[in-house]
């Protein structure tokens, strides 16, 4: 790895972002924080798509994928938030680990 800008630089950023997202999903109690973590993961995937598209001189496919991912991220966020709101109405909490009535 050289210090000069290359594909791997972007991939590293993406990897770190991905891991941070996973970390958030794993550790944060607040459901909304978990959702933020998921957004980070989606962003990291998008960085990959675009970086590959750029450096691989592959095609515009990467960017197209990124667009759709952004759209879906929005949908998912909306639906997830609606569900979180419903949870809040039912349980009066948004702590994910408090919602564990269904278990073995």
């Amino acid at each position, binding site marked *: 790895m050289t210090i000069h800008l290359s594909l791997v630089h972007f991939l590293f950023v993406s990897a770190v972002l991905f891991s941070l997202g996973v970390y958030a999903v794993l550790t944060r109690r607040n459901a909304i924080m978990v959702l933020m973590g*998921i957004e980070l993961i989606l962003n990291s995937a998008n960085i*990959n*798509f675009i970086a590959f598209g750029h450096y691989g001189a592959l095609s515009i*496919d990467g960017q197209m*994928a990124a667009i759709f991912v952004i759209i879906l991220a929005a949908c*998912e966020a909306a*639906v997830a938030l609606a569900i979180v709101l419903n949870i809040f109405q039912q349980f009066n909490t948004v702590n994910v680990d408090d919602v564990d*009535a269904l278990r073995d």
Partner: protein
Amino acid sequence: MLQLILQSIGYIRPETALVFTLLSAIVADLVFKRKAIVAGIVLGGFAAVAYYVVDEIGVNLSIFSNMLAVDPFAVYFKFVVVTASIIIVLFSLSSNEVLSSTRRIGEYYALLVAMTTGMFFMVGASNLLMMYLSLELTSISSYLLAGFTKEAPDSAEASLKYVIYGALSSGFMLYGISIIYGLTGSLDLYSINQVLTQGGAGRLALLFGGVLAIAGFGYKISAVPFHFWTPDVYEGAPVTITAFLSVASKAAGFAMLMRFLKVGFADLTVATLPAGLWATVKGFELTNVLIIIAVLTMTLGNLVAIWQDNVKRLLAYSSIAHAGYMLLGLVVLGNDGYAATMIYFVVYLFMNLGAFYVVMLVANKTGSEDIQAYKGLGSRSPLLAVAMAIFLVSLTGLPPTAGFIGKLYLFAALIRAKLIWLAIVGVLNSVISLYYYVRIFRNMFLRDSEGSAEPLTFDAMSIVVLLVLLVPTLALGLYFGPLVTFAQNSVAMFGVR
């Protein structure tokens, strides 16, 4: 280009019909007071869809710039999905859970149609992006449907877990797709296959991307260790949705995985293997991962199911185990195995939906899904108990029921591919599965009812639906020729032999 697009549009009639049904349902929900009309519209829509699917039999095409394949394989699974959808609508007509949420019933059917739409795209998708999109469409609809009875805490919890788990899994899958894209420069499965066949991809990254992608598929088909959402969501969701998830969404997930594996990773240039088996591309080690997953899935599903007291949850674990059996068909990496999995799906469709239907009817009457509620069912409602017994026998895989035929073909494929020890694990698992199915038998027939011993009566509609599920479960066990032929004819995917 326009020419191609116009031509392509001609081949998405079922999907178009579905979207049309979706819109009609929404409009009808606003217009009509009687919600049964919505159900009627949806049923009619599904019938039309089924008609268009029939129309697609024999077509073998790729449309929308290789986004979607309309091939016998997809058509087969579309049949499975649309049959399941119709049956679920019938279920919904007598489900207390659904009927009690009158105000949202329009949305319920709309989402059901949307989910079906998603699954129709899933079974045909031959582009990774398209796969991701259709998976999300299905998932988003199912998150919402799982939480449909939102006043019920269980249902709300189920939807929360489902959405978090699902979003993360699809995130993983997306990341995996991005890596595969980076390696092959394409999202199109055919191009990916071409690149991989030439051996032009980093092995390690491919493996990692593959594993991440499989995490996404695994989540959809409830394969261990990506299954964790399944018991909780199945238990919390309304029983109609549980049944739907366990059959249709699993079928779509399998179809997608099967296409992903065969179109993307089969090296069809290798001709030394016996007919029907194919080699994988160089450096692809996911077969072994899949074997491990299959073994883990059936074993864990069966072992944990032994401990369940909630029948719905028990069936959830049972459906995990069944996913494991069906994965056995995949790991054969051959047309035999694929056909076996496909046959199994039709069989599974009837027997599993049947079991869930009985659970629903019992819950409707007794208000309980607990195994205790089944005590004395044999005397309270012999028809229901016998039907349940037959469904469970079929799920165990004993002749002369359809379940036996399903298992027979799976194990036959394994034996033929000389994966004999895997077959032994498989059959031993079906022995284990007997344990928990037998617990239900036992409560139904060997125990006396603890509470009320009143006979349970059901309306004609319920009995008809029950028979619709029961007859194929038995008939396919004795006469399975047409099904097998259909499945074998349908193994063909576009672009691969």
